C-alpha cells in the first residue's frame, strides 16, 4: 500500500485536472447512433455531464437508456460500426478526446480513464492468468520489468482484498468466484492509477451479499486513491451511499441531474419518482411491487415530445409535442415541462394507468 500511495503523489504532479479551468471530465451534448440493418437507433441524444476530481457521479437508467454507450464513447471503445459518435464533445482536462488522434486517445485509456466492466468472466481473457492480465499494462505501458510488474500485481490484488494474492497470481479467471473476479477487474482498472474510473454496472452480475462488498471496496478505494468515479447502474439502492451526484438517463438523454440527497428527498422528474417508488420497502410487505408501467422506447422510434410521455402519469398535451428543455432548478436540472410543479408537490396525475 505504501509504495502505491507514493506513486499516486508522483502522478499528481503531472498536469493538473484544472487545465482550461473546466471540469476533469466533461461530456458535452454528445450524440451517438447505431446504424443497423433495422434502421438508425439514436442511442445518445445530447447527453451532457461532468465530473470533478475526486467526486463520484452515478449515472442511473434502465437497460438501453444509453448509460453504458456513453461510457464506451468516453473510453473510445465503441464498436464502430455499428456505433458512431455524431456530435458533441468529450473533454478530458480541457482536451476534446473526439478530436485527438488514436495514439493520443490510447494514451488516455487505462492511464487517465479506466473502466470496470459488468461481467468480469467475459471481460477477462480466459486463456491468460490473472497475474499476467493485471501486470500486462504495467509491462507494456509503464515500462516495468516482468518481475516488478508481477510484484505490483500482487500489491494490487492485496489492495482489492484478494486473499493469498501471490499464490493466485498464476490462476486463470475461471478459477475465481464471481466476486473475486470482479476484484481482479478492479485491480486491473486501478493498475495504471487513473484519475477517473468508470464502473459500468460493477455489481450486476454478482450475488447480493457480494454486491455490497464490492460497492464498499469501490467506495473505500476511491477515497484512498482520490479517484473520480462514474458509477453506472440501474440500481437506485446501490448509489445512495457512494455517489455525490446522480444523473438519470432515459432514451439517451439525461432527464434529471441533482445531488444525491436532493434527488432522493424530492425527485424533479416523474421518471425518477417512478424509480424511487419502485424500490421495494420492508414496510410494504404483502403489497404488489410498484413498477413504472410500459417499456423503455424503441430507440429507432423515440416518441415525439418528451420521450417518457407514453409512460407518464402526469402527461399533459404539451408533453406529446414539445421536447422539454433541461430546466435549471437551482443546482439541479430536470428535463420535465412541469418540474417546478412536481417539486412543489402541485402536479396532479392525469391518469392512473398510462396509455401503452
Amino acid at each position, binding site marked *: 500500500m505504501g509504495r502505491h500511495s507514493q506513486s499516486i503523489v508522483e502522478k499528481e504532479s503531472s498536469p493538473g485536472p484544472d487545465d482550461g479551468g473546466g471540469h476533469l471530465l466533461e461530456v458535452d451534448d454528445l450524440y451517438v447512433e447505431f446504424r443497423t440493418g433495422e434502421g438508425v437507433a439514436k442511442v445518445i441524444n445530447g447527453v451532457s455531464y461532468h465530473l470533478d476530481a475526486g467526486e463520484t457521479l452515478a449515472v442511473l437508467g434502465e437497460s438501453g437508456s444509453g448509460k453504458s454507450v456513453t461510457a*464506451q464513447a468516453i*473510453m473510445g*471503445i465503441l*464498436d464502430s460500426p455499428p456505433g458512431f459518435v455524431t456530435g458533441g464533445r468529450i473533454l478530458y482536462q480541457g482536451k476534446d478526446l473526439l478530436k485527438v488522434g488514436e495514439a493520443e486517445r*490510447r*494514451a*488516455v*485509456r*487505462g*492511464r487517465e480513464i*479506466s*473502466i470496470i*466492466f459488468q*461481467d468480469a468472466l*467475459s*471481460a*477477462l*481473457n*480466459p*486463456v*491468460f492468468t490473472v497475474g499476467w492480465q493485471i501486470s*500486462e*499494462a504495467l509491462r*507494456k*505501458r509503464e515500462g516495468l520489468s516482468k518481475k516488478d510488474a508481477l510484484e505490483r500485481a500482487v500489491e494490487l490484488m492485496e489492495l482489492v482484498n484478494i486473499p493469498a494474492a501471490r499464490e493466485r497470481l498464476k490462476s*486463470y479467471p*475461471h478459477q475465481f468466484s464471481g466476486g473475486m473476479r470482479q476484484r481482479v*477487474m478492479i485491480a*486491473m482498472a486501478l*493498475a*495504471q492509477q487513473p484519475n477517473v474510473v468508470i464502473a459500468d454496472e460493477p455489481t450486476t452480475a454478482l450475488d447480493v451479499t457480494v454486491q455490497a462488498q464490492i460497492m464498499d471496496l469501490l467506495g473505500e478505494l476511491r477515497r484512498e486513491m482520490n479517484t473520480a468515479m462514474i458509477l453506472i447502474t440501474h440500481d437506485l439502492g446501490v448509489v445512495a451511499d457512494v455517489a455525490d451526484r446522480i444523473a438519470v438517463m432515459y432514451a439517451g438523454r439525461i432527464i434529471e441531474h441533482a445531488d444525491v440527497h436532493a434527488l432522493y428527498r424530492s425527485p424533479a422528474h416523474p421518471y425518477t419518482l417512478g424509480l424511487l417508488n419502485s424500490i421495494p420497502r420492508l414496510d410494504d410487505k404483502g403489497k404488489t411491487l410498484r413498477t413504472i408501467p410500459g417499456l423503455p422506447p424503441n430507440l429507432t422510434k423515440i416518441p415525439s415530445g418528451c420521450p417518457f410521455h407514453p409512460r407518464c402519469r402526469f402527461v399533459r398535451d404539451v408533453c406529446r409535442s414539445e421536447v422539454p428543455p433541461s430546466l435549471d432548478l437551482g443546482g439541479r436540472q430536470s428535463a420535465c415541462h412541469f418540474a417546478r410543479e412536481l417539486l412543489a408537490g402541485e402536479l396532479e396525475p392525469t391518469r392512473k394507468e398510462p396509455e401503452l
Partner: protein
Amino acid sequence: MFRYIIRRLLQMVLAFFGTTLLVYWLMFAASGDPIAALAGEKPLSPSVRQALIQEFHLDQPFIVQYLYYMRDLLTFDLGVNTSGRDIGQIVATAWPYTLKLAFIAFIFVVVVGITLGVIVAMKRGGVFDTVVLLLTLIVISIPVFVIGSTLALFGAKWGLWTTNVGGSGKLLAYLVPALVLGSLSLATAVRLTRSSVGENLRADYVRTAKSKGLKRSRVVGVHVLRNSLIPVITFLGIELGGLMGGAIVTEKIFNIPGIGFELAKAIGLEDGPTVVTIVSLLVIVYLLMNLLVDVLYAVLDPRIRYE
C-alpha cells in the same frame, strides 16, 4: 491429465484393433487365391502348395489368421508381400517422400491459411474478404484430382514445373504437389481462422484489452489470436495426421513414390499384406495425432481439464 492420456491410449488400442480387423477382413474377402498369386506362371505341385498353405496358416479360420498377423505386426515383423519384397523396406523407402510432401503442404496451410484468415477477419465484408471467401469456396468444391490434374497439365504444357517428381530430392519439385495436397486444408483453415478471429474480435475481453490502452496490434496479435487459434490448431493437428498418411491422388498424379503411391499400387495388385500393413501404420499415426491434438487442446485452453 495423466489418467486421461492412459484412458485415451487404451481407447486407441480398441480403435486400432477395430480398424485393422476391418481392413484385414476387407482384403481377405477381396483377394483371390494368394498362393496362385505368389506362384505366378509356374504351376505348383500339391505338396508345395500344401506346405505354403501351412506356412501362411491359410487353412486356419479368418480370425486366427488375423491374430497371427497381429502378433507379427506388433513384434515389428512386417513380413513380405506377395511378390516377396520386405514390406518394412517398402514403408521405410516410401515414407520419407510422403513426409517431405506432407510437411511442405502443412507449412503452406499454417502460414498462408492463418495469415489470410486473420487478414480477412479484420476486413470482414470488404472486397478482399469476399474474393478470398469465394476462392476458398471454389477450392473446397473442386475435387483434389481435378485441381491436381489441371496443375499437372499446366506444368507439362508450359514447362512451368515438373509433373514427374519421382524420387527427386529437390524440395522445389514438391511445391506444386504440396499446394495441391494442402489446398483443401488451406481453404478450410482460412475459413476457420476467419470465423474464429471474427468471433473473438467481438468478445468482451477485447474491449477490456483496448481499455487498458494497448496498441491494436497487441490486442489482436496477442489477446484475440491466442484465443482464436485454439480451434484452428485443433483442426491443423488432425489435418497433419491425414497429410502424413500419404496422398494417393496427389502422389499418383505427380509420380511421387510415397506411402499413398505404394498403397495405390498394392491395392491394384491385390497385394493384401502390403495394404493391411500400410493401413495399420496409418491408423496408428492418425490415432497418435488425435491424441496429441487433444492434449494440445488442454494446454492451449486452461478452461479444459480432462478428468
